[in-house]
Structure formats: C-alpha cells, structure tokens
C-alpha cells in the first residue's frame, strides 16, 4: 500500500516538472550562454525564427536545450509566437463614411476605411493636436541598405 502510494505520488508530480514550453527567437540572432548573465560564455547562437524549448526561467533568462547541451537565452530576444514577416500599413479603401458611420462596424474593411478617413481629417487640422504629414513623409523616406548598416556596425565594433 505504501509502495503504491509512493509511486502514485511520483507519477502525479513528474508531468508537472517534465513539461517544456516553446519559445521562438525574434531578434536577428540570440546568443545562448552557459549561465544567466551577459558576461557569461556564449555556447551557441540561435537565429531568428529558431524554435527553442525551455523548462526553467530565472529573472530575464530562459534555460533552453540544444541536443544534450543546455544554455541560457535572454527573455527579451524571444517570444512565445513565431516571428511575423514585415507588415506594411493599410491600403486605403473607398468605403464612404456616410455608409459606414451609422452601423456597428463589423469588418476590418470598414475599420480600415475609418482609419483612412481619420488620417484625412487629421491632415486637414480638424483636431486639437495639429498633425504634420509632410514632415512625416520625410521621416519615412530615411532609408539605407543592409550593407551600409553592416559597415556602421563593423566600424563601431558592435554586434
């Protein structure tokens, strides 16, 4: 009886601790360290989109496993969802406000139209806080290719 009770207790407890959760690398790369510290040795480097399992969290670090090797990855480089691809802003639609205004919005299309119209009204200055879209267009135009960014990182001795 005592033995049955003993093994039942173990069987009851084990699943709680044996389960591992899944996380995905969101950053371009994620160093996995031999202890939960930035100054620790890097064991291996995971890449964006890599799926990792963890069964322990300590502060800002997850304990993950690669084959037989265990290591710590910083929690702010990962998430529990796979990384999304680049998402651009909405395409404007031609749904008229008069048609969509007095019914309960139930689709994303009407929501998109409303946002477009909200921007239009903001552009015309019909709000308390004035908007400046011409300068915003300039801000959105700042761009450079990956090779220039790589050069910038290398020159600064950055990761």
């Amino acid at each position, binding site marked *: 009886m005592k033995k049955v009770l003993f093994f039942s207790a173990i069987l009851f407890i084990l699943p709680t601790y044996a389960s591992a959760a899944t996380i995905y690398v969101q950053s371009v790369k994620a160093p996995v360290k031999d202890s939960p510290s930035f100054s620790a040795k890097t064991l291996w480097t995971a890449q964006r989109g890599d799926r990792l399992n963890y069964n322990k969290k300590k502060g800002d670090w997850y304990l993950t496993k690669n084959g037989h090797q265990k290591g710590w990855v910083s929690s702010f480089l990962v998430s529990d969802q796979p990384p*999304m691809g680049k998402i651009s802003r909405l395409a404007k639609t031609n749904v008229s406000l008069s048609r969509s205004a007095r019914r309960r919005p139930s689709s*994303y299309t009407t929501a998109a139209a409303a946002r477009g119209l909200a921007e239009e009204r903001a552009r015309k200055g019909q*709000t308390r806080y004035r908007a400046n879209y011409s*300068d915003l267009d300039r*801000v959105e135009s700042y761009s450079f290719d990956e090779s220039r960014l790589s050069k910038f990182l290398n020159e600064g001795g950055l990761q």
Partner: protein
Amino acid sequence: MRDKKIYIALSLILSIFFVTSPIEASNKFRRRGDDRLQQVTENDVKAEIEFGKILAAKILGRYRLYDNKKANEYVNLVGQSLVRYCSRPELEFHFAIIDTDTINAFTAPGGYIFITTGSLKRMSNEAELAAVLAHEIAHVTEKHIVKELNIKGTDDSAVSTMSGMIKSMAGGGSLEVAFLELAERGAKMLFEEGIKREDEFQADRHGLLLASQVGYQPSALRHYLFVVKKARQGEKSGSIAKTHPQFNERIKRLVKIEKDNGLGSVRGKTLERRFKANIKI
C-alpha cells in the same frame, strides 16, 4: 526502519509538490495572461501602425523636424542597429530628430521614434544615444500605448476601447471619430500625462538589455539620466521630468538590473568620437 525511510521520502516529495505547485500555477496563470495579450493578428499590427502614423504626425505637428540630413541618418543608423535585436521584426522602425530644447524623446506605436535636439545636446557619446533610443524602442515592443488605449484591428471586439466609445456615442457615432479621438488621447498621453510609471521602468529594463546586447556600454542610460537630473531645473513643459518617473528611482533600478544580469563587469562601446562627428548641435 525501511518504512520510516519511505515515509520520510514521501513526506519530502509531497511537501515539495505542495509548496511549489501554487508557484507553478501562478506562473501558468501569468503565462496565460501574457499569451492573451500576445495573441495578435496581422490586422492588429496594421491598426497599430496606422494609429502610430497619426500620432507621429501629431508629434511633428507640435515639434519641428530638425533639418539636418547627416544627423538624422546617423540617428537612424544607431536606431536600426538596435532594431535588429528587438522582439518586433514585423515593424519598420523610423527615427528622427525634432528641433526643441526640451529634453525628451517620444514614441508612437508602430515604430516611430523621435529624439529632441535638447536631449542630444546633453549626450556625450553614441552609447547614451543608443540607450535612449533603446528605451523608446521598448515602449513600442512592449506596446505600452497600444495596450493603454486598446488598439485593435477589428472593432467589434467586446473589449475594444474603440468599440466601447462608439457604443457610448448617442446616435451618429462613427468609427472614424472614435479612431481620431483615440489619437487625441494618445497625443495627450505623450505631451501632458506621460506613460505609466511601471511602463517607464519596464522600458528602462528592456532598453538597457537591448543596448547592451548590441555592444554598447551598459551604464550609459544611467549616466545620461544623471546628467539630465542635474540639467532639468528650469525645464519648460514637455520635459522629461514631467512625463517620466523620478530619476533617483530609475537610476537605482538600473543599477540592480545591471547587477542581476552580469553587466557590472561588461565594458561596452561608447563611440564618443563618432557621435561628435555626426551630432553638431
């Protein structure tokens, strides 16, 4: 004797289980909470970007864009260096300098980040610039404004702020008005009220870790806050003192984060010469 050993072993196992299972249950509950918040759709992200664009335009309606291509490109390069390690690869981040002596930086959801010339004047190196930009990036990655205003891609959600606002408008309420009203609230939050105190602390934490990950000196944000603390007297409206928590508390917490993450002994890059070659304000 053998029975006694079994009893002791059994008691120990059950004790460990009953002591740790509430912690595990609590952690699971938190994870469920996080999962709920992170169950975002592509439409949610598109709404966030759209909303952020309106808010960014309002920031530029209040403060003039600093007209210096070299300086703006440099700030973008530093910002994009950080973005590579951030947790929102789906967003296109934009960085720019706004021309005001006010010491502050502003963030709009979707990845729009602005730093003032007043802030740049008080910085002594690139690590400090990176630390401030990383703090602002963290506001975007942690969706502080998006969560506060409950911005969603679909508006028929029972919990959507936008949906609630439309319902409360007696006749004639429209989604366009609701969206615009939310943008006004967002602007008020940025310019007058500031982001929640706990969200600021979280942005400090994530920002410090992000900048350190890229290779910048971990103590840079702390050093910059110390300089700003001394300079803040005489600041006008819109200053960092008005929209951010007390400096002493922030500095104290940053010291602890550095210690907890083994950053105390890390010597990162400061890149003072490169900063001074690009920022001449």
